[in-house]
Each structure stands twice: as structure tokens, then as C-alpha cells.
């Protein structure tokens, strides 16, 4: 079920125009991913602004190709210069670069490319065949559930993107939620915090804010900190050995499924997925001592995990309109921009859209595989571009992109302001992702909380008695307390108490 629809959607996309767009966007994505400082989120945000004149489905296929290409592209710089091109490829460095230093750069790139493709294929399977079922479950969601879901999304994102200090992740998330309150509210259409400004009454535009947080902040950081350019390991042949793939099949499936599930968690992106997949691969490996010294298993797990996460992050975008990662947040904003309405009603209003997006994802993954294996020397040349030369060009592109959507100079100011705020926040270890997720989910939280209360004349009982609400509340509480030492101690003693009868019987 669904296979026919998927094939049909792939067939519909097989036009020269779309294929050309997929290839150039994937190519551009790989370059963006390779260049340290340019991230997938920034690339998608910039491309959203520059393609909004295009027809909706063509624009979305371009953005998905950029997303897939950028997450894969980061592995090149991770392997060749030991710097992750995007945060998603940090785990790739651990084994990818040691392999390159051992003279196996080509082999490592080949493994990374095929693993990325397998990761995407596993994600495609979940996207195409599980998303419609998830969509049916999402139909059960009402205002009450959506309120808790948005809150859970911001809190879990804050927790996982700031593992050293979740408090800062939560603060960033709530700041994002608050900033989303600026402008006209959805129920009474009353301007909030606008102070008479016509520009503010429309709210802070999502894309300029995203471009500011990810693009402008990077321009400031790179210019201020002047990162060094590393020595590039040269590479010749990248076709991987079949044996390396075959012996890793369990690892590939496990990492792919892990990547999809991590991706589906709101706001938690590819960087976390790749580390979780890497960690799981090391735990279940027969040769864990090789990890960190050039392990094919480690490299495979990291690259399968992060690319599977791309598909996983798109799943909640489609069925809940809740992004699974920062790049998926931009993708969601782009869908809104093109009058597409992902969310629970998607399975009723436009059921084929799920297969269309899956088909776009498949084409982008195929383009990634072809470009990744064939175009080696050009991509190595790209790494010679100095970030300090590139950053002013990014600044101009950020300004052009922010202006392009509404033709307002005010949006350039929003972009610059978010860059201005984003840099000190980043230096003080406030993560970007919860801020952005808060901005995206703010209107949803506001509207659903108030609508839920209005429908029940202020009665809060549906918020705390409905089954899905209870599950979400428990998850929120666990998110809040799971790092608390008293909670950890209590859980440890509870676990010991539960296991004690079994221990006695063993003795």
C-alpha cells in the first residue's frame, strides 16, 4: 500500500525541468555542506527566499535537494580536513579523518556516500509507508494535544541541543515562543507589541529571522574568530568496496532507524542523530576498540544516521506541522510561504502530498549518490575557498534573501537584529534550535491554548484528562526532571527495588 502512489509521484516529477533543478540544488547543497560555516539551515533559508517566485512544488523539491545535499556534503570536509562542514557531520570526523590520514580518503568518502544513500532510503521507507498511518493518528489531535505537543517540542529540543545546560536551551525556546507573539494574534486579530508599527503588525517574518540566526550569526562568528584553514587530504577514487557495505548491513539498518526516530523528535536535528547512531554502533560492535581510529563501522553509522534523520525530520512536518530539525523548520516555513498546509488535515485534504514529498526526497537522494561518487575533484577544490572570503558574500545574500519575500527593508533589519542577538547567545551557549523552534511553534501554542480554553469556557480539565495529553504531560515532566540528581537517585533505587526479587532468586 502506498508503493503505487510513490511510483506515480516519482513518475510525475520526472521532467527535465525538475531533474535539472534537483541536480543543481543537490550540487549546491553539497558545496554549502562542505564549506565550514555554511549550514544546511542557512542554505535552505537563503534558497527559500531566492526561489519563492518559482511554482510551489518546484521550490520545495529544490529545498529538499539542498537539505539532502548539505547534510551529505558536510561529510567531505569532515573526512578531508577534519572539520565538520555542518554540525551534523561532527561524528563523521571521528573515524572519517583517521581513515583519510591512513591513505583511505577515497574509501571513506565512498562509504560516507553510500551510507548516506542507504540512510535516505530507510528514511524514504518510513516517510512513504508510515507517514499516512501517523497522519491518521494525528487526526485525533485537538487543540489540547497540540498545546502540549508544542510545549514538549520546545522543552525536548532545549534539553537535547544544550546537553551541558538544558536551562539555557529552555530559555532560548521560551524566548522564541515569546518573539512569535509579536504581531496580530490569530483569534481576535489584535496587534500585540506592535507599538503602532505597520511592519511589526505582520509579526516577525520567519525566514529573515532564520536567515539572521543561522546566516548572519555565522558571518559575525567567522569574521570575528578567523578560523584557520586546514590542510586538505588529497583523494582519487571513491567507489566503496562491496564487502564493507555487506558486512555492515545490520549497522546500516540500526543507524537508519535510529536516525529516523531521532529526526522525528521535534527540533532535534542531524547532529544528535549521528552521535546517537555512532554510539549505538560502538556499543554493539565486535571491535569497539577500532572506533575513533578509523572504523568503517563508525563512519557508516554516523553517515547513515544523519541522512536518515533528514527524512525523519520531515515526517512530523507533514503530519503535525511540527519540524523535526532546524532545517525542517525552514522547510515548513517555505511550505507555508507557498500556500501548502501540512498538518493533521493533510491526509484528508491532500493525501498525495506525502508521496510527492517522499518522491522529491528520493530524487534528491539519488542525485546525491550520483554527484557524490562522480564529482570528486571539483568538490575538493571547493574546500580551498577561504571562509573569510566567502562570508561577505553570504552577508549580501542574507540581505537580498530577507528583502526578496515581501520587498521590505524592515526584514533586512530583522535579519541583522537576529544576527546581532544570535552571536552573543551562541557564545553564551544558548542553542539556536530551540529559539527557532519556538518562533515556528509560538503561534500554534498561543492559538491552541486559548482556543481550547474558549471551547470549554475556561475549563482546563480536557487539557489534563485526555489520553494523549496525559502521555505528553508525562513526557514533559520526564524532560524537565530527567537530569535532576534527586530524580536520578530515586529512579536508581526504584530500579534496584524492582530487580531485587530476581537477584535473590539468582543467588
Amino acid at each position: 500500500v502506498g508503493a503505487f502512489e510513490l511510483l506515480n509521484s516519482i513518475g510525475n516529477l520526472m521532467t527535465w525541468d525538475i531533474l535539472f533543478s534537483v541536480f543543481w540544488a543537490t550540487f549546491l547543497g553539497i558545496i554549502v555542506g562542505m564549506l565550514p560555516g555554511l549550514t544546511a539551515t542557512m542554505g535552505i533559508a537563503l534558497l527559500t527566499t531566492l526561489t519563492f517566485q518559482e511554482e510551489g512544488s518546484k521550490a520545495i523539491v529544490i529545498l529538499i535537494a539542498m537539505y539532502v545535499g548539505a547534510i551529505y556534503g558536510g561529510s567531505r570536509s569532515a573526512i578531508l580536513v577534519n572539520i565538520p562542514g555542518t554540525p551534523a557531520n561532527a561524528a563523521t570526523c571521528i573515524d572519517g579523518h583517521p581513515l583519510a590520514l591512513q591513505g583511505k580518503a577515497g574509501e571513506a568518502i565512498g562509504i560516507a556516500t553510500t551510507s548516506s544513500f542507504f540512510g535516505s532510503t530507510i528514511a524514504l521507507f518510513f516517510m512513504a509507508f508510515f507517514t499516512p498511518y501517523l497522519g491518521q493518528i494525528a487526526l485525533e489531535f485537538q487543540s489540547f494535544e497540540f498545546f502540549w505537543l508544542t510545549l514538549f517540542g520546545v522543552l525536548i529540543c532545549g534539553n537535547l541541543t544544550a546537553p551541558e545546560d538544558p536551562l539555557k536551551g529552555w530559555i532560548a525556546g521560551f524566548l522564541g515562543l515569546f518573539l512569535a507573539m509579536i504581531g496580530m494574534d490569530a483569534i481576535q486579530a489584535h496587534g500585540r507589541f506592535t507599538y503602532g508599527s505597520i511592519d511589526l503588525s505582520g509579526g516577525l517574518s520567519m525566514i529573515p529571522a532564520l536567515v539572521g540566526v543561522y546566516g548572519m550569526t555565522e558571518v559575525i562568528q567567522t569574521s570575528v574568530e578567523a578560523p584557520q584553514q586546514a590542510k586538505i587530504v588529497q583523494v582519487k577514487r571513491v567507489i566503496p568496496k562491496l564487502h564493507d557495505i555487506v558486512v555492515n548491513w545490520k549497522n546500516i539498518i540500526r543507524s537508519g532507524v535510529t536516525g529516523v526516530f531521532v529526526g522525528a523528535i521535534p527540533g532535534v536535528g542531524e547532529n544528535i542523530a549521528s552521535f546517537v547512531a555512532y554510539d549505538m554502533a560502538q556499543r554493539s560492535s565486535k571491535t569497539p576498540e577500532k572506533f575513533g581510529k578509523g572504523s568503517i563501522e563508525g563512519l557508516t553509522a554516523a553517515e547513515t544516521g544523519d541522512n536518515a534523520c533528514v527524512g525523519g525530520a520531515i515526517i512530523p512536518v507533514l503530519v503535525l506541522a511540527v519540524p523535526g530539525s532546524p532545517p525542517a523548520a525552514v522547510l515548513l516555513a517555505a511550505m507555508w510561504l507557498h500556500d501548502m498546509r501540512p498538518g493533521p488535515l493533510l491526509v484528508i485534504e491532500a493525501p498525495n502530498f506525502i508521496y510527492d514529498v517522499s518522491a522529491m526526497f528520493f530524487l534528491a537522494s539519488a542525485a546525491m549518490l550520483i554527484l557524490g561518487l562522480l564529482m570528486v575533484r571539483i568538490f575538493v577544490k571547493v574546500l580551498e575557498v577561504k571562509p573569510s572570503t566567502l562570508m561577505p558574500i553570504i552577508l549580501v545574500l542574507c540581505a537580498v534573501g530577507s528583502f526578496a519575500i515581501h520587498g521590505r527593508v524592515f526584514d533586512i533589519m530583522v535579519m541583522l537584529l537576529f544576527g546581532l542577538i544570535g552571536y552573543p547567545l551562541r557564545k553564551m551557549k544558548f542553542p539556536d534550535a530551540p529559539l527557532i523552534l519556538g518562533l515556528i511553534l509560538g503561534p500554534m501554542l498561543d492559538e491552541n491554548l486559548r482556543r481550547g480554553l474558549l471551547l470549554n469556557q475556561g475549563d482546563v480539565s480536557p487539557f489534563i484528562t485526555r489520553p494523549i495529553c496525559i502521555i505528553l504531560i508525562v513526557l514533559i515532566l520526564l524532560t524537565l526532571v530527567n537530569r535532576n540528581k534527586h530524580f536520578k537517585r530515586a529512579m536508581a533505587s526504584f530500579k534496584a527495588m524492582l530487580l531485587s526479587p530476581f537477584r535473590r532468586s539468582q543467588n
Partner: protein
Amino acid sequence: MGIRIVLTDPNPGAAGRWPVAPMHVQHPHLNPSLIKHRQAMEQDNCKAPQAKPDKGSGMPRADFVMGLILMLFGLVAMHQSLKIPTFEKDWGGFYAAPGFVPLILGGVIFFLALLLFIRAFKAGGHRLIPSRETFRAFVKAPTTRRWCLVILYSWGFFFILGHIPFLLAAFLVLLAFLLTFAEVKKLSALIIAGAASGAIYLVFSKLFLVPLP
């Protein structure tokens, strides 16, 4: 000729800080301030304490100031939310008011900022006043100067947009950035700035039909 870097640690991830690998930079012809800046940054990386999980981010002074700022922000947010009309007569209760959710969010931000503030205070973040040497070093630090210049150039670009043609504004900001931050000769900076601004103008206004500021 670019910078030549010799990597000495094949496994930087294991060091716990990412992606900082111990590096020795050889700099045959760079300008002296950039070399000093890089050496200072390398030393900073070596001296930086390892963050311990669940013990805060190891920057109590910054957290103390940020906690104060955010507490103030939360209070102002709550105050401003209360000034928004409630429409209680038409819509039932205060829960329907446009300011209801911002009020809660302002309160949550205040509470979380208070936690940050208390934690930073306990860690000694209230000992705010830096010594004269520290302050002087901060003011004279290359990073401070570079940060000021980035802000000046980017906001300068914003303010000249609309007053002069886009092509010229883009060329000027590119040239300023390249001459200040990039390791390129003046002629190369001129060529790159000219080519990049021209390409951006042509690609976006003619190919993508995107309106330019």
C-alpha cells in the same frame, strides 16, 4: 600561498571539545595583528576549562548578567502583556485575551532567568567588576575590534541600501569585509568584490527575478 597547518591529533572528538584540534600554524606572510589574534585564540582554547555536565556552562559572570537582562525582559514582557485589551465581555474570560499567552511566557522567562541568575550568583558570578588589566585587555582584544567592525560594516550596508544603487552598496560592503578580514591582496579584494557583487546582481535580478533592495 595560504596558511599551512599540521594536524597532530587524528581524533579531536575524543578531546570533548569540537572541532578544536591541537594545531600548529605556520604563517609566512600574514599581517601581525592576525597572527597575534590566532595565537591568543589557540592559547584560549588550551586554557579553556572543560565544561562539566549539569553544572552550568562555566561562565558565571556572563550568566549573571544574562540572568539579570532576561529577568528584566520577562518583567517588561509581563507588564506589556497586561496592557493589552482583554476583550472579556465579548469572549468570556481572561483566558481568551491576546495578552494571556505572552503573560505566561513572560512569567516563564522570568522564572527560568531567575534560576540562571541564582545559579550564577552561587558560582560567584556577582563579582562582576573586572580588574583594570582585564578590562584593558578586553577593549584591546582583536576579537572586540573585529566584532565592532563587522557590526559597523553590516549595519552600514543596511543604512546605505536604498540611498545608493544596490550594486555599489554590495561592492562597498564586500570590499570593506575583504580588506579587513580576508587574507587577500588589495587588487584581489577589488576583483573579488566587483565580480561577486556583479554576479549577485545579475543572477538574482535577471535570472531569479528577485527584487533587490
